C-alpha cells in the first residue's frame, strides 16, 4: 500500500523538489529503504555506512516518534503519514564540564610564576589553570604509560593525582618507565612515583592506592576523580576500567602500546564511544602477546602516555578538539600517525541505548582467563596433561647423568641471542610445521623437550608435535625464565 512520506527542506532537492512522496511498504524500514532506492541521493543522508538509520534522523509516524514504537519495524497502513524530521546538531566537540561548579581556589603568586607559560595562552589562562588546580585525575598503573602521563600532569598543575599500582620496580622496567630510577629497583612503584612527582611539583596532592584494581573496588576508587587515565597492560583490566568509567560517567583516556605501535583515544565521554563500541569482545587468550612477551620500544609509551596527558588536560580545560570518536594509531617504526573514526554503538552492552551491563562483572572470566592463572604466571600453558610436561630440575638432572634429550627452543632468533640452554636447537614456532624433518625420529631417537620463554608457545609446539605423531615430547614448564632463575643464574633474563 502507498504511504505518504513528508520530506524535510534539506532533502527536497533529491526528490525533485517534492515535499510529499508516495512510497510502498508495510513497515517504516521498508518505506525508508524503498524511498532511498527510488531517490538514490537520500541513501547516504538517511543511512550510515553500516545500513543503520543515522542518529540525527528522526522518523515520525503521524505524530509519534518511532523510537517509542517499534523503531524501523513499526507497521504502517494506508492513510498513515511518515515524516522525516532532522535533528540539527553541532558545536565544538568537547566533553561536559568536568569541574562543574566546584570551588576553584585562586592561584598563589608562586603558582602564577610557575605556570606563566600556560597563563599567557588564552586557551588556558588564569581560568584554565584554576580548573587544572581543581581537577582530580586517577592514573591506573605507574608503568610505561603512567610514568610520562603522571609526570606531565603533575608538572601542568593538576591539583590531585591518584595512582593505582601494587608492583615493585624491576630493572627491566627502567628502559621505559621513566618515573622510576635505577636506585628504585626493588622498591614499590608507588613510593618512587610519589618521590618523583613531588620533586616535579610539591603542590600536587598525590593519592597512593596500593592495590590491584578489581570489580569490587573500581567504582569506589573512581568516585573521587574527574578523569581516568588507563595505563593498563592487559585485557581484563582494560575492560574493567572501561566499564567502570562508563558506569561512573568519567572519561576514560585510553592508551596502549605493543612493540612499535601505540593507540590512544578518549572513551566514555557522554555521546561518544567506549572501548566496547570498538572491541565488543576481547581477543582469545594468548592471541595478543603482552609487552613482556612481544617487547616494546622504550620511548613508545613516552609518546602515547604524553598524548594521554594532553587529552586529559584538554578535557579539564574544556577546549580544543578532544580525541573523542577518533582512534589514533601511531607506528613508531614507520613514523606514521593514522586516525580511525569511531562512533558510539547504540547496541553497545555498556554505553548503548539499552545497556545490559549495569554492574561490573568478572573480567578474568569475560576474557577467557581462569582465575588465579594470569598470562605471565609462568605456568605450563593452558590444558597440557602432566605426562606432557617436565620441569627445569628434571631436565638438569638428565643432563647431569648424560641422559640427554633433544632440546627444542621454539623462540625467535633474537631471543636465542639473549640466553639459551646449552646444546638446544632453535626452530621458531612459526617455522616448526615446515621443519619437522629436522627433528629426531624413529625408535632409537632421543625424546624431545620443548621450551620457549615461559611455556606458552612451547605448549602449542608440544601439542602440534603430538598431533604429528611424535610420541615422546615434553613441554618445559616455566621455559627459559625458570631455567635461568633456578638452574643457571649466570645468564641474563629478559
Amino acid at each position, binding site marked *: 500500500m502507498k504511504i505518504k512520506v513528508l520530506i524535510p527542506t*534539506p532533502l527536497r532537492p533529491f526528490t525533485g523538489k517534492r515535499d510529499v512522496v508516495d512510497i510502498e511498504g508495510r513497515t517504516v524500514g521498508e518505506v525508508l529503504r524503498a524511498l532511498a532506492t527510488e531517490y538514490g541521493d537520500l541513501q547516504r543522508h538517511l543511512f550510515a555506512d553500516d545500513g543503520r538509520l543515522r542518529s540525527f534522523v528522526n522518523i515520525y509516524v503521524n505524530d509519534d516518534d518511532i523510537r517509542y514504537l517499534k523503531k524501523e519495524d513499526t507497521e504502517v497502513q494506508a492513510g498513515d503519514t511518515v515524516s522525516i524530521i532532522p535533528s540539527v546538531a553541532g558545536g565544538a566537540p568537547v566533553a561536559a564540564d568536568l569541574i562543574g561548579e566546584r570551588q576553584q581556589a585562586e592561584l598563589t603568586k608562586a603558582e602564577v610564576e610557575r605556570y606563566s607559560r600556560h597563563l599567557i595562552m588564552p586557551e588556558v589562562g588564569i581560568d584554565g589553570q584554576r580548573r587544572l588546580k581543581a581537577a582530580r585525575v586517577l592514573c591506573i598503573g605507574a608503568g610505561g604509560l603512567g610514568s610520562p602521563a603522571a609526570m606531565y600532569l603533575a608538572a601542568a598543575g593538576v591539583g590531585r593525582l591518584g595512582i593505582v599500582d601494587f608492583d615493585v620496580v624491576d630493572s627491566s622496567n627502567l628502559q621505559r618507565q621513566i618515573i622510576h630510577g635505577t636506585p628504585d629497583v626493588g622498591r614499590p612503584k608507588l613510593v618512587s612515583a610519589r618521590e618523583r612527582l613531588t620533586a616535579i611539583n610539591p603542590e600536587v596532592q598525590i593519592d597512593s592506592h596500593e592495590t590491584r584494581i578489581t570489580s569490587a573496588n573500581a567504582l569506589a576508587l573512581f568516585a573521587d576523580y574527574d578523569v581516568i587515565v588507563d595505563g593498563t597492560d592487559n585485557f581484563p583490566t582494560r575492560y574493567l576500567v572501561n566499564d567502570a568509567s562508563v558506569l561512573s560517567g568519567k572519561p576514560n583516556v585510553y592508551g596502549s602500546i605493543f612493540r612499535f605501535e601505540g593507540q590512544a583515544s578518549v572513551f566514555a565521554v557522554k555521546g561518544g564511544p567506549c572501548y566496547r563500541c570498538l572491541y565488543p569482545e576481547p581477543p582469545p587468550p594468548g592471541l595478543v602477546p603482552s609487552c613482556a612477551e612481544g617487547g616494546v620500544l622504550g620511548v613508545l609509551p613516552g609518546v602515547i602516555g604524553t598524548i594521554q596527558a594532553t587529552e586529559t588536560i584538554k578535557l579539564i580545560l574544556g577546549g580544543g578538539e578532544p580525541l573523542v570518536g577518533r582512534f589514533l594509531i601511531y607506528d613508531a617504526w614507520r613514523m606514521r600517525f593514522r586516525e580511525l573514526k569511531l562512533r558510539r554503538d547504540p547496541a553497545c552492552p555498556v554505553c548503548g541505548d539499552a545497556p545490559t551491563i549495569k554492574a561490573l562483572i568478572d573480567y578474568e572470566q569475560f576474557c577467557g582467563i581462569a582465575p588465579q592463572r594470569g598470562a605471565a604466571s609462568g605456568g605450563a600453558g593452558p590444558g597440557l596433561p602432566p605426562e606432557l610436561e617436565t620441569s627445569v630440575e628434571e631436565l638438569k638432572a638428565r643432563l647431569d647423568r648424560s641422559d640427554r634429550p633433544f632440546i627444542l627452543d621454539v623462540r625467535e632468533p633474537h631471543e636465542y641471542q639473549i640466553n639459551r640452554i646449552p646444546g638446544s636447537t632453535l626452530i621458531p614456532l612459526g617455522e616448526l610445521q615446515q621443519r619437522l624433518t629436522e627433528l629426531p625420529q624413529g625408535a632409537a631417537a632421543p625424546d624431545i623437550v620443548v621450551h620457549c620463554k615461559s611455556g606458552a608457545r612451547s605448549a602449542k609446539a608440544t601439542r602440534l608435535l603430538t598431533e604429528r605423531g611424535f610420541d615422546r615430547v615434553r613441554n618445559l614448564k616455566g621455559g627459559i625464565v625458570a631455567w635461568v632463575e633456578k638452574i643457571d643464574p649466570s645468564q641474563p633474563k629478559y
Partner: protein
Amino acid sequence: MNGVWIPAEVADAIRAHGKAAYPDECCGALIGSGSSVLEAFALDNKTTSGARRRFLVEPTDFRQAEARARAAGAELLGFYHSHPDHPARPSQFDLDHAWPNLSYVIVAVEGGRPATMTSWRLRDDRSAFDEETIHENQGTHPHAAAALHGQA
C-alpha cells in the same frame, strides 16, 4: 555569484544572540528565499551534553522553523550557531550531524565578543564542508523581494 546574502541587521542579530548566550552556544534557523536570508529565527538550545560546546535543534523546533518559513512564504535556508572561544570553522561533530542543501552559519564569540562569521555547505558525498561567501550589508538579493512581501 555563489554564497549567501545576509542583510546587516540580520547578521547583527546573529552576533547579538551569540553574545547573549556566551559562554554557551546559541542556535537558530535562517529563513529566506533562494540564497537570501531574510530572518534569523532564534531557537532554544536543547542539548543536554554541555550547552557550552554543543547545540541541538529538536524535531519540534525544526518543524516550527519550517512552519514559520512556510507562513512567511519563504524557505528554511539553514541554521546558525555560535562557537564560544573557538574558531568559526565547522567541527567534526558539525560534519557528522550535517544536513545537505542548507547553509550553516557559524559565528565565533571570543571572550564574549562576536568575531568572525562564516557560512558552510555540506558536500554531496558528506566528506567535508565547503565555505561559502557571506554577502553582508549589500542589500538583499534581487530575487528575495517577492518573499519579503509575504512576511507578517
